[in-house]
């Protein structure tokens, strides 16, 4: 499979009615309705999952790895995202989730929150460097990183070059398990329990490094039923709850800001809110801001579209849990900072999917035609043509992906003219 084009977010064509719900909500204008069905423009999709959330017909789905895929490996490690802890109302401790996962068939459960501890420390170090452009932008939410590639290419240099907690967790988990049991790391498979499609895509097609240390991503929804039944009789054992409260706090918006512990940090959740603040950063309106944490989902990772529990309930569950665990300081021994590859090995590049043409002069010509066409459109932004706005419709016409008569209002005008011509014709032929 061409991994560069891999997207977790897909369309199930036969369920799609061709309505405008997803069309209107896509933050990168990556959806078009053509022939009565939605289509996703691969180059633009950032796998945020907004369309999955708003589709009333469940025609938008996330492709994830099935639980059965863990049998590809001799040894299997579960990597629970901290947001997973928020899915269970009567949890007596995080260790119940870890033990529950082991009862399900994993040889080990390694907290991604421990990866978050290490990542928090690494970001703290990076923030000491005054030469990094401010604000430093978090790299944790892959949908936000991709949003920046598509819509804010001039802010790419602000993204911190520290890998995501799940990557760091996978590296540590494999190393520790291999040493403890005297086995080859190649025989160990690490599976992230994911709240969102963006992480699935990040595993298959990572940004900032060649290959992910994570071997698969299983959605929370896929294991929810089985895991909740296991949790009921899973024992509490606080000695295996090794991540800090700060690491666990990454599950919700603001958790990362708190963990990197810097004055003038801002946490923004919800992709539209993130876009508004990124616009301000681009204009240099937030001059004193040191750190920006953006999460595509409302509430942060607890709001991920592949979770079971609603984000407010999950958020309060996580808050309750992390205030109860007795680990207030980041759990990182200094050896970890050099032992693992914590930093990106390749540059993040802009995604030029919004560009009208590779040639500037041709792009300007197209822009001019877009303006001319747009002026003639009604400006209702109704979406009936299959493009999200009149503006994007004009762009689609110029790019050859639509014709004026796809606009029903234009069509009505045209019909009126034709009807009048018929009347005129009828009158002239009667004489």
């Amino acid at each position, binding site marked *: 499979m061409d991994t560069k084009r891999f997207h977790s977010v897909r369309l199930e064509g036969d369920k799609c009615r061709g309505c405008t719900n997803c069309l209107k909500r896509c933050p990168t204008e990556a959806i078009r309705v053509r022939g009565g069905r939605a289509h996703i423009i691969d180059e633009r999709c950032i796998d945020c999952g907004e369309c999955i959330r708003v589709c009333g017909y469940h025609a938008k789905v996330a492709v994830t790895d099935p639980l059965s895929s863990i049998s590809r490996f001799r040894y299997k490690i579960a990597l629970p995202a901290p947001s997973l802890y928020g899915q269970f109302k009567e949890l007596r401790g995080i260790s119940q989730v870890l033990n529950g996962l082991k009862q399900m068939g994993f040889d080990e459960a390694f907290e991604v929150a421990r990866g978050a501890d290490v990542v928090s420390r690494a970001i703290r170090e990076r923030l000491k460097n005054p030469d990094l452009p401010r604000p430093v932008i978090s790299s944790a939410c892959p949908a936000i990183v991709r949003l920046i590639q598509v*819509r804010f*290419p*001039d802010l*790419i*240099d602000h993204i911190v070059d520290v890998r995501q907690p799940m990557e760091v967790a996978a590296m540590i988990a494999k190393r520790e398990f291999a040493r403890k049991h005297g086995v080859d790391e190649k025989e160990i498979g690490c599976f992230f329990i994911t709240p969102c499609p963006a992480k699935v895509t990040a595993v298959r097609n990572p940004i900032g490094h060649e290959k992910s240390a994570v071997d698969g991503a299983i959605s929370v929804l896929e294991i929810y039923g089985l895991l909740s039944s296991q949790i009921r009789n899973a024992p509490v054992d606080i000695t295996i709850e090794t991540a800090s409260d700060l690491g666990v706090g990454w599950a919700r918006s603001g958790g990362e800001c708190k963990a990197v512990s810097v004055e003038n940090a801002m946490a923004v959740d919800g992709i539209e809110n993130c876009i508004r603040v990124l*616009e301000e950063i*681009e*204009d*240099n*309106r937030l001059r004193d801001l040191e750190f920006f944490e953006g999460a595509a989902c409302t509430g942060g990772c607890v709001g991920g579209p592949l979770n079971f529990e609603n984000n407010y309930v999950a958020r309060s569950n996580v808050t309750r849990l992390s205030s109860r665990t007795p680990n207030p300081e980041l759990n990182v021994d200094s050896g970890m900072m050099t032992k693992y590859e914590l930093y990106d090995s390749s540059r993040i590049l*802009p995604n*030029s999917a*919004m*560009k*009208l*043409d*590779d040639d*500037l*002069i041709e*792009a*300007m*010509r197209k*822009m*001019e035609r877009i*303006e001319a066409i747009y002026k003639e459109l009604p400006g209702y932004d109704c979406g009936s043509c299959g493009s999200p706005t009149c503006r994007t419709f004009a*762009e689609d016409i110029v790019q050859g992906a639509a014709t004026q008569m796809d606009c029903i209002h234009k069509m009505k005008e045209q019909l009126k003219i034709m009807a009048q011509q018929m009347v005129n014709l009828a009158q002239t032929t009667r004489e």
Partner: protein
Amino acid sequence: MAVLLEKSFPVEAGAYTTAGEASTTIKRTLKQLGISAEVLRHVSVACYEVELNLVIHSLGGTLTLLVDPEKVTLISKDIGPGIPDIDKAMTEGFSTANEEARTLGFGAGMGLPNMKRNATEFDIQSEVGVGTTITMSFALK
């Protein structure tokens, strides 16, 4: 080289609710043209500053975007009141922003110096009672 693209945006005095809209549209246009990230960043900063200046200090005016294969040009032209002492206005920290603007976080006196810093070429012409014209260009190569 002939200008290939021109877009004008009227900017009203004191219209804080719509302040920044012209800049957002200009940024979107430049991104669609595929202008490099570096130039984009400079234009974004200068463009927002100049738009806000029109809102805060002028009696209203127009912001114009011109693009040709060599450069991006921004022209801000207002209908008054005009700047009595341009050298003073160009000094960092000098501001005549009113209380309303200051409450909103403006008036640090960095506007004009910031524009000059970000533009490749910067020109300001002003006459009291007539208006101010600021021309900034950003080289594409």
